């Protein structure tokens, strides 16, 4: 709408990002706790959250490093978790591709699950927004999210340094991952990916260098993509019948 001012778009973004605070605060606190339990200093924990800003990948890296996996395996596995970011990047390019290089670089840094999900929806609903308005909205969604991500990582790290071992925090990582995975299982294809990944990982658990996880990840991806293909072909046939 032509009547929409940049200011009103900014507050729309902040409002749309705000509900995620309820997820970000406990999640980043938990990361701080888990990282310091694994032996990281508060500074190391914060640096990781600032440089990576991707919870699942950060947890993955810590879990593998803690179990003495080789550095390259920890790195590749965590990056594999973040491969979806490349998909986000591709989806936003038609909307933000005309921005300056600096703006695109900052947008890339703040490209997380929440900014992506909100933006792709709004940009689609508001095709007449200018590039400036789109950028305003995108960064506005990050405003209530990313600073709290850093802040509560530190708070979690400070808490973590003072929690005794008897708290069974070994299981904080599995519980967090399970809670993250469950909402992802939306379709048959997602279920197939997860199932193949679990079976492969369990079968290959003893494999050197934690290679089992990488193979499980690849197998899971291929399973998901195949089932999606089969299901979409079936939907096409039924649509034409």
């Amino acid at each position: 709408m032509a009547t929409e001012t940049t200011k009103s778009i900014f507050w729309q973004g902040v409002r749309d990002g705000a509900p995620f605070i309820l997820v970000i605060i406990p999640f980043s606190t938990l990361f701080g706790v888990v990282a310091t339990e694994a032996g990281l200093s508060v500074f190391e924990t914060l640096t990781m959250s600032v440089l990576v800003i991707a919870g699942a990948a950060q947890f993955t890296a810590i879990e593998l490093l803690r179990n003495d996996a080789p550095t390259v395996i920890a790195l590749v596995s965590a990056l594999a978790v973040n491969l979806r970011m490349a998909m986000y990047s591709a989806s936003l390019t038609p909307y933000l591709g005309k921005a300056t290089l600096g703006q695109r670089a900052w947008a890339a840094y703040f490209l997380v699950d929440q900014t992506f999900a909100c933006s792709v929806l709004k940009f689609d609903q508001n095709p007449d927004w200018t590039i400036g308005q789109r950028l305003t909205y995108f960064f506005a969604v990050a405003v209530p999210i990313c600073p709290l991500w850093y802040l509560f990582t530190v708070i979690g790290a400070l808490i973590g340094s003072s929690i005794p071992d008897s708290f069974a925090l070994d299981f904080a990582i599995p519980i967090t991952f399970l809670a993250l995975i469950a909402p992802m299982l939306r379709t048959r294809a997602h279920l197939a990916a997860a199932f193949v990944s679990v079976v492969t990982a369990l079968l290959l658990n003893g494999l050197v260098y934690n290679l089992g996880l990488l193979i499980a990840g690849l197998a899971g991806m291929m399973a998901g993509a195949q089932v999606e293909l089969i299901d979409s072909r079936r939907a096409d046939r039924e649509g034409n019948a």
Partner: protein
Amino acid sequence: MIDPVALWTVIILLGAGSFALRFVFLGLIGDKPLPPWVLRHLRYTAVAVLPGLVAPLVIWPEATGGALDAPRMAAAVVTLGTGLLTRNVVLSICLGAATLYGGLYLLG
């Protein structure tokens, strides 16, 4: 304890790599669309890697030296079940943790 060199290598390269993944299309490739089969695989990366990571941790918990453990198994089931039913991440973590501590208290 994690080796500091390994840790900093991962922190810096994971940061750089994550940025590269976010920047690759937005910054470098521009408007050219990805082939559908690539997008189709990228869609399933997280859901393919995370279950493979978590499954061995649940079946062979390190705290018990790898022995199947009732409170931890119950916590895993409750977390996953809550997540499937409510799609609420924080609620799932809370109920899972409550199950774990309840189980450890009752059985421990």
